[in-house]
């Protein structure tokens, strides 16, 4: 397969040429947030410099231009995720906001005592705590699909859990801590057989491939733009139209109403019913630039490149004595978590940072998963398409040096 030119692509991202602690930045913390191409930065800049106005309610030119640009972004997302209707695309604050919207608005109107919600052992706190809160309130039961030592879901256990009591299955598409890509399509189909709805947390998926709503037949899908080379403070909740239609609103305020009197308020149509208040307009508008950017790339090549990075880094890391990779699923995104025997992840993070390497250390907001592996946390290197094999080499050099110092 033709290779992408990483050196060329890196030029699109101004931050990638900066230095950290005197060393060239090696940014391997893409799982936490991705870097932004110049076109996204420019879109934000241009909005504030030339077009800034509030949207959806103004007659004047600036307001119309901003509204149009904002709605263009919605359509671009719709196309990108292959949703049937543009009003199935709701702008949120981020992944966490989207999950809370559903656990709250859907949960309050659909869960009752004794109902069951299924999550997995590898969920991010953002896909655990909201369900704990609503299950607590509704006296519903939270069930957890366990994983094997490689970090893969035990599908047999999942099938056993499913019953007519199951109302919701909420799970991560790609695990931020392990890299595991879950078989969401199969999981969704199984859930639908018992009449349960499925919410997929796509936070980590969207940097690696466009999720396909119609192929997945998923009920709710959430992600944030900041991990897909877009701005901070904005995310997407996709929901099937009929479901969104039936759910009561989450937040009340401007834009989400049709008419308000003190006696009776009627709610606006989709998507506005779920978009109370002035949104993050600059980020909404720059979303189009992010989608345009990523769709301009050759994703077959990117998949091959990311796989190569993953394979290469995996082999190189395994050569380091005492290093253990956490998460060895067959189907894995370019995310590697590991621990080093006798050395605290924090110490390694501090030392490699001195050499310009940005990795994440800690529990990655997946404490139950860390407990499952009997560890406090890991060191995580997460790769984006702009990372190179040379950067893997630099990581390995830095790790060896850190381990040397720390043992």
């Amino acid at each position, binding site marked *: 397969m033709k290779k992408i030119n990483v050196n060329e692509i890196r030029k699109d991202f101004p931050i990638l040429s900066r230095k950290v602690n005197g060393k060239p930045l090696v940014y391997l913390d893409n799982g936490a947030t991705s870097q932004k191409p110049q076109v996204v930065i420019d879109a934000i800049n241009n909005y504030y410099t030339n077009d800034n106005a509030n949207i959806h309610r103004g007659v004047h030119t600036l307001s*119309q231009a901003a509204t149009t640009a904002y709605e263009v972004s919605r359509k671009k997302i719709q196309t990108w995720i292959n949703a049937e209707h543009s009003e199935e695309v709701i702008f949120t604050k981020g992944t966490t906001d989207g999950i809370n919207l559903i656990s709250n608005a859907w949960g309050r109107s659909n869960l009752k005592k004794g109902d069951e919600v299924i999550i997995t052992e590898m969920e991010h706190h953002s896909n655990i705590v909201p369900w704990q809160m609503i299950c607590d309130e509704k006296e519903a039961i939270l069930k957890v699909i366990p994983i094997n030592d490689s970090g893969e879901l035990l599908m047999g256990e999942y099938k056993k859990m499913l019953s007519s009591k199951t109302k919701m299955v909420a799970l991560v598409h790609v695990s931020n801590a392990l890299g595991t890509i879950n078989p969401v399509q199969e999981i969704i189909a199984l859930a639908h057989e018992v009449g349960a709805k499925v919410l997929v947390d796509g936070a980590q998926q969207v940097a690696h491939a466009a999720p396909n709503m119609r192929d997945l037949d998923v009920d709710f899908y959430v992600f944030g733009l900041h991990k897909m080379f877009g701005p901070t403070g904005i995310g997407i909740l996709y929901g099937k139209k009929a479901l969104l239609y039936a759910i009561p609103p989450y937040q009340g305020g401007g834009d989400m109403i049709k008419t308000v009197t003190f006696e009776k308020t009627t709610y606006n149509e989709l998507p506005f019913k779920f978009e109370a208040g002035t949104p993050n307009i600059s980020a909404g508008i720059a979303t189009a630039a992010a989608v345009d950017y990523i769709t301009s790339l050759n994703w077959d090549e990117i998949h091959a490149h990311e796989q190569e990075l993953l394979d290469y880094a995996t082999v190189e890391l395994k050569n380091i004595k005492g290093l253990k990779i956490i998460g060895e699923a067959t189907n894995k995104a370019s995310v590697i978590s590991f621990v080093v025997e006798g050395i605290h992840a924090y110490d390694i993070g501090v030392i490699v940072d001195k050499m310009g390497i940005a990795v994440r250390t800690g529990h990655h907001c997946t404490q139950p998963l860390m407990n499952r592996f009997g560890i406090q946390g890991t060191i995580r290197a997460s790769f984006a398409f702009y990372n190179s094999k040379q950067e893997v080499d630099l990581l390995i050099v830095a790790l060896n040096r850190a381990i040397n110092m720390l043992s």
Partner: protein
Amino acid sequence: MINERQDEVIEEFEMFEDWMDKYEYLISLGKELPLIDESKKTEENIIKGCQSRVWLAADLNDSKIQFTADSDAIITKGIISLMIRVLTDSSPKEIMETELYFIDKVGLKEHLSPTRSNGLVSMVKQIKMYAIAYSLKV
């Protein structure tokens, strides 16, 4: 037929030198006789834009649809008047198949943007709905 009338309107607008002339014409259209019978200004026929209200009624006569409509905003009403002139007295099929290009051509596209809160976009949708509904009856 519809397209002929669209082209007619476009030609008319070519006379105007600037936005002032154009809007003055629109306003004068808006000010002319009522475009709808007061009795038809019912809750049922109302289309609520966020800012101006639009009323729309459609009747079938001799296999042709007669549209009547109104708005409380005069510019909106002027545009409605153009639309009725173009569309009324046409068969459901014609209306279903037509593409309303004249609005864009005469430089009033902004008023038909889905982000406008004047109710015109919903009105056009509603017109198509009527056409579909009546096409089943014809």
